């Protein structure tokens, strides 16, 4: 994560706002996540020219256009391998990946599991609305059993995925859950995630008022993790994520372990700047 020298004028949340106007429906939960991201960026004083926000495809994946940093909206489900390429190529960049539950857990689910085990220093915020917003309201992998949508007119028959459990089972080094209705808390989680050296997975519960309005359903269920909760204990984290009452939010798990770029790369410089003078002739001579 790159911090700027303190000499530059302090950036405010609004300074991270781009000229592109969000195209989300009024009341979309993603506004809350975006607001939290602006806040978090300002709090960390991220340098827009050294920050890359990467996404897949979905309503939520539109987010990079609304942020005045580098951004890359990739293909549906491919946000994480692209983000990893960016990060390995230049470990000095702050890389934030964002997307939706369909993007991240359906078509992109495998990349999540493999990103997690490699532990690249990336923060991944999934705006989970338990539905496919952009394609107009089909069932998503987090939709509840029996969910009726246009693609499941007789009710969904697939047990929903538990993304936190997934991440924990795959060996995630930072797992947190927030709620777009509580942007302050979410801001704290994003800051903690970006500051965590390793892969930070943040499930941001972010309702879709147009296709599955869960604000009223979720709000009363949202609650903090129990007192004295120890985010260093994976089994405890698992028992919290498997709870079937309430929607606990907060930092479920954190562990420090070597990051992907610390392994893959010999130095932490941008690859472009690598100084090693490479002598191709010397390499070729080895084949004589």
């Amino acid at each position, binding site marked *: 994560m790159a911090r700027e020298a303190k000499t530059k004028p302090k950036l405010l949340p609004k300074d991270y706002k781009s000229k592109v106007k969000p195209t989300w429906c009024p009341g979309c939960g993603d506004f809350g996540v975006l607001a939290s991201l602006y806040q978090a960026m300002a709090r960390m004083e991220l340098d827009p020219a050294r920050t890359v926000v990467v996404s897949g495809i979905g309503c939520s994946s539109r987010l990079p256009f609304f942020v005045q940093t580098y951004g890359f909206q990739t293909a549906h489900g491919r946000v994480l391998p692209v983000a990893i390429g960016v990060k390995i190529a230049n470990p000095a960049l702050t890389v934030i990946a964002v997307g939706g539950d369909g993007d991240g857990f359906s078509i992109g689910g495998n990349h999540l599991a493999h990103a997690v085990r490699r532990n690249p220093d990336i923060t991944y915020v999934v705006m989970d609305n338990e539905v496919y917003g952009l394609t107009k309201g089909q069932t998503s992998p987090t939709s509840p059993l029996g969910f009726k949508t246009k693609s499941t007119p007789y009710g969904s028959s697939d047990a929903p995925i538990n993304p936190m459990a997934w991440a924990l089972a795959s060996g995630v080094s930072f797992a947190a859950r927030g709620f777009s209705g509580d942007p302050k808390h979410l801001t704290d989680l994003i800051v903690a995630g970006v500051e965590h050296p390793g892969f930070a997975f943040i499930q941001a519960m972010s309702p879709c008022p147009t296709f599955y309005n869960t604000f009223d359903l979720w709000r009363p269920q949202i609650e903090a993790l129990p007192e004295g909760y120890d985010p260093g204990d994976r089994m405890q984290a698992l028992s919290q994520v498997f709870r079937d009452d309430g929607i606990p939010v907060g930092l479920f798990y954190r562990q420090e372990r070597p990051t992907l770029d610390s392994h893959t790369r010999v130095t932490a410089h941008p690859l472009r700047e690598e100084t090693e003078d490479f002598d191709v002739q010397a390499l070729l001579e080895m084949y*004589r």
Partner: protein
Amino acid sequence: MIVDTLLVRLGGESGIDNAISAGDVLTLSVARSGYHVHTFRTYPAEIKGGPVMFQLRAGVQPVPSLGDKLDVLLAFNEEAWQLHGEALRPDGVLIFDPGEHDAPREFGGTAYGVPLDRLSKDLNLRKGKNLIALGALSALFGFDFQPIQATVKDKFGRKRPEFVESNRIALMAGFEWAKENIQDEVPFRLAAPDSTHDPELVMSGNQAIVAGALAAGCRYFAGYPITPASDILEEMAKRLPPIGGASFQTEDEIAAIASVVGASIAGVKAMTATSGPGFSLMQEMLGLATMAEVPVVVVNSMRAGPSTGMPTKMEQADLNIALYGGHGEAPRIVLAARSVEDSFYQAMHAFYLSETFQMPVILLTDQSLSHRTATLPMPDPYRVPVVERLRPTAEDAGGYQRYRLTESGVSPMGIPGFDATPFTATGLEHDEYGAPNYTPAMHSAQLDKRGHKFERAAEVLCDLEYPLGCHAYGAPEAEAEVGVLAWGSTAGVVREAVEEMAAEGLPVAALVPAVINPLPAERIMEFAGHLRAIIVPEVNRTGQFAAWVKANTELHLISLNKYGGLPFTPAEIRAKVMEFLVAKPQEPAAELQPTEEVAHG
């Protein structure tokens, strides 16, 4: 008889006879003795079991192809004789193990029984047969002993010193047994090598690609193992970290190309390598690279398909997907490597083009070339310019337009961490700033921008010179009557056949472009000139390259297709050319060859 080239094939059982590793040792040592070499190998797709074969062609002069009939067959078992006997010239030399089978009666050449298995058992060497065989070969054909031993030491010395010693013993045993038991002079012996220059390099096609990519500045590689491209991943994994680069085995091919696109967005020259099945999976991300204008290089080493097909066999059947594989209109530059040496240059070339035009470049090779080891002169990396993509200048700082509609189609690309020009790239259609835009005018304009870059590439590529441009062989084009137009690894056989025929005074010329898309149509038309017939040999069933050339030139072409998983031989090319040379020149080409011809292989 003293000969200029010698073609030796080793055939055995995978995992038992170690024919491939014997071949590798022999190749390297023969090359170190100053000969030119060219190898060909086929594995079974099984790990152990199944027939393998390794073939070495050594010559005093450069050997562009795998050759025709075998001079020498070393059959480790009876199956090897059955599989390869037919490929042996009638007056050739067969070395067999009399413990495995009798000397085949139907064979009229020279047969030497060498008790490989017994000798190896006598010496208590579990895996010694192959070195014993090499020892015998050396004794018979007068190969220098020293380089073989040195090669074994080089290859295994560090990891398994005990191996070096047991191999030395095996080598000696084979050598001495042959010296003692076989007195006849072999029917042919290779002439002495030209000792006036240093031995050349010995590399595989895949190794040459890696070296070329590194020379061009590639510092990021991601890939997923797949035959016959895995050794590019393995070579990159070995070479990149020490020079400050990064290499990465991903969970699948989609992740590989995705991370390459990501690395390139972050300003690094990046590449992936795969084969057919993985290449099919990469199509969506390649479209993103075209749309977001991200330079990436993808090597596709073709194997026989479709589907999983025959992973260890060659075919030239992925041209169509390389040209047309993505949805929508997503132009890509397509190159095809023609030899091990050319693999080096085309890898550099791929980066040159990809950075210049900010688009994906696909470099095609195939199983036979990827795994071919051959001698080559030290390549000159300065022959291909090493370039960097166009970057924003101070002027761009305010209101930076990443996708500005420039005349050339190329616009400056800001790099995070290096340029203070944040923008968001996307696979959606976008305006000049990169923001989504679906108006008809903007979609047309951006499609044109991406198309024009590509069309401009065609101009740039028009006047490419050696080593990058079209290679021409044989008779002077003005004098030629029959032409051969080839692509990819078929270049070698075509070169050999055509040069030989031209040397005999036959009016035959060949042309082999490296850049397949955009096709150097003008150069091909020039070549076509007044030729009576143009033959297009390719290892596929439907003539993909011929169709592509027709679409670009409207020339009448004669397809020669072979599709059994094996490369052409020079004799097959010659035979086809002769059909047209013997015909009277007065007859129009169309009558000579009214329909396309297909030769099964």
